């Protein structure tokens, strides 16, 4: 069997139904073999789009995403997407073509040291030099990508390995002597869990800080059980959104740089912080040594290198989050948090999210309307910037795998291709890309991909003709000098139509909801809704870089005097009733 056919056989056995990529000189044999297989291959416009689509597919489905590119520029174009997946621990297998083995190192046409370039941004990588290795390498690559702390794995396939013949021997077992992921461990260590349970029992003001690890491990139910059983409120990181329903009375929403004011106060005041599948990123902690400074800290994580990396913790627990939580839930009972929950409920009322009505449409209002129109049930992809933070603040995330956003790397241009990948993963569901005009334009060419497959992806562009977050920082920290943050106006309706998508422009507040409804009813092609939003709007509240959580900018107190209107976040009806009963 030819190497390329071996590759395809292996992909089939891994359950791969779809892959994203672009053919070129040295990966033609691979594309040719895929063409004759049941695996659907989506041609993207740019390889970066392919990597983000594989990533979005993986985030939305929990399966491994696959992307393909040729050697040289094809491979380098994937790098941003691979790095994005790496920073957020997303299982992706990237398969790149390489020049034939005999000319590697000779500066051949379209040759680049792909393994070398991607080394720091992959969980692992393989340069295959013999077609007999392909089956083992593919098997290992998928295993490594999806187990332990997930991440991208790259397979570099020189063209000769894909056209030479070898016997196809599929390895039924994977055995890598230097890799022993936690979930494969026969037993987990109970002593650290017992000590964590004791710390929980002794706390009076605990807060759970949940990250994407909860979602990766499929541990949302176990997290909810812990929170309800022990009566502990839950805040999530940006990537942890959806890991705990925001309609739950115990939900504190998102913490960190643009987290809710009362949530950050809660973290500043808590006596026990329980980090679960989260890595204490600087956008969460602000100044690390003042983060939750009154609190003892528990940290449950699958990756030992995440523990004590930026914030020193008192009770480290290494293990698969779901397994650990199951054990922990056996040991915890109700904690006396009545006073604490009362304080938090008061703070929730006292420090709400706030914005001031302006003549132009406000992006926060648009997100609120999308949240209501979809009842919090859509998959939301985003770019990076102000709109991303408004999406996190004003969309109500209730289910795992409902936010698809580049948290760690902060990759602008992630939104549209990630939304396309997510729509392929969940064809019957509503997928919105909430984007900014700056972010969107970085990968806008993928509209053609979405249109080609008649995907009903919806894109909400918050068009403020700026790199809004950059403009905000320039106003805050650079005396208002707007160096290269203003964007040339683009007619996104025409851009949509040019690509075979529907385009709607919204300039008035009363057009917002009808436009969203119209987009939701359009199911035979992508729809772009261009919201002409207030360019001077800032994203509040905000912890300035390196500042502690109780010194926020743009607080309710600050904005109230300026005519800000508090925005109530919706709780479930049951919880509303409980709240009114005190």
């Amino acid at each position, binding site marked *: 069997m030819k190497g390329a056919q071996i590759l395809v056989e292996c992909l089939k056995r891994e359950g791969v139904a779809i892959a994203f990529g672009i053919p070129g000189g040295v990966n033609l044999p691979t594309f040719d073999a895929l063409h004759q297989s049941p695996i659907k291959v989506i041609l993207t416009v740019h390889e970066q789009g392919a990597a983000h689509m594989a990533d979005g597919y993986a985030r939305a489905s929990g399966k491994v995403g696959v992307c393909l590119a040729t050697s040289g520029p094809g491979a380098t174009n994937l790098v941003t997407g691979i790095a994005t997946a790496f920073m957020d621990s997303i299982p992706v297998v990237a398969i790149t073509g390489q020049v034939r083995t005999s000319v590697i190192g000779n500066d051949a046409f379209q040759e680049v040291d792909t393994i070398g370039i991607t*080394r720091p941004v992959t969980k*692992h990588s393989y340069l295959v030099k013999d077609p007999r290795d392909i089956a083992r390498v593919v098997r290992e690559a998928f295993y490594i990508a999806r187990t332990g702390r997930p991440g991208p794995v790259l397979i570099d396939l020189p063209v000769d390995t894909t056209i030479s013949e070898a016997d196809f021997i599929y390895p039924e077992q994977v055995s*890598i002597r*230097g*890799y022993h992921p936690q979930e494969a461990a026969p037993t987990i260590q109970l002593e650290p869990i017992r000590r964590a349970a004791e710390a929980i029992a002794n706390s009076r003001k605990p807060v759970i800080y949940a990250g994407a690890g909860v979602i990766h491990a499929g541990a949302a139910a176990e997290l909810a059980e812990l929170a309800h059983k022990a009566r502990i409120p839950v805040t999530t990181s940006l990537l942890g959104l959806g890991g705990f329903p925001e309609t739950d009375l115990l939900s504190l929403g998102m913490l960190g740089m643009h987290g809710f004011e009362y949530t950050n106060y809660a973290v500043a005041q808590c006596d026990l912080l329980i980090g679960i599948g989260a890595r204490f990123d600087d956008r969460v902690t602000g100044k690390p040594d003042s983060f939750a400074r009154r609190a003892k800290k528990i940290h449950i994580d699958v*990756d*030992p*290198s995440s523990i004590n*990396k930026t914030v020193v913790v008192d009770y480290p627990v290494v293990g698969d989050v779901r397994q650990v939580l199951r054990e922990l839930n056996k040991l915890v009972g109700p904690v006396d948090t009545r006073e604490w929950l009362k304080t938090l409920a008061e703070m929730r009322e006292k420090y709400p999210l706030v914005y001031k009505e302006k003549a132009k449409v406000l992006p926060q209002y648009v997100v609120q309307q999308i949240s209501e129109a979809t009842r919090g049930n859509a998959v939301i992809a985003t770019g990076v910037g102000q709109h991303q933070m408004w999406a996190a603040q004003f969309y109500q995330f209730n289910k795992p795998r409902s936010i698809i956003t580049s948290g760690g790397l902060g990759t602008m241009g992630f939104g549209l291709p990630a939304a396309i990948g997510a729509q392929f993963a969940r064809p019957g569901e509503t997928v919105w890309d909430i984007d900014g005009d700056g972010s969107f334009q970085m990968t806008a060419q993928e509209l053609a991909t979405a249109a080609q497959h008649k995907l009903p992806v919806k894109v909400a562009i918050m068009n403020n003709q700026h790199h809004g977050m950059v403009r905000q920082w320039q106003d805050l920290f650079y005396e208002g000098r707007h160096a290269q943050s203003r964007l040339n106006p683009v007619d996104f309706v025409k851009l949509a139509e040019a690509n075979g998508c529907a385009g709607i422009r919204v300039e008035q507040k009363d057009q917002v909801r009808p436009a969203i409804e119209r987009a939701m009813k359009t199911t035979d092609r992508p729809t772009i809704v261009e919201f002409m939003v207030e360019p001077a709007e800032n994203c509040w509240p905000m912890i300035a870089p390196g500042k502690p959580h109780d010194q926020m900018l743009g607080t309710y107190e600050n904005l109230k005097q300026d005519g800000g209107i508090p925005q109530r976040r919706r709780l479930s009806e049951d919880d509303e009733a409980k709240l009114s009963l005190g």
Partner: protein
Amino acid sequence: MASERHTISCLVENHFGVLSRVSGLISARGFNIDSLTVSTTEDPTISRMTIVVDADALKLEQVKHQLYRLIDVIDVQELREGAFIDRELLLARVNANGAARAELERVASQFGGKLADAGDRSVVIEASGDTKTLDRLVERLKPHGITKLVRTGRVALEK
């Protein structure tokens, strides 16, 4: 927290590219490396890397965990002071006229070394030993004028 020298012994897959994975990780994470040696072991598919880092206790934990994250790293062990034997090899070209030559030969033999080469105006001294011993040897050679010096970096085995 006090920064100290630590010796880490790693068993790694004997593949191409493993050294660059390890050195790339170390430089990308900003760890301070004093020396790194690599060689094959009794098992030809496995290499041993001996890494000497200057780090406090927390940073050292990070180095160990980060190394262990690499798929090609099979085992990571910190060798504790007194529980291992370490050696490095030193070669030094030292100025030597007639009278100094005998003196240098004597110094070398005091340190268990010898003259590996003798030229008209200089000699090459070869010695192996633990780091501190070789540091002392270098001090003894300095007055004669060291023109070139190379040390292999530490290799170590637990006792």
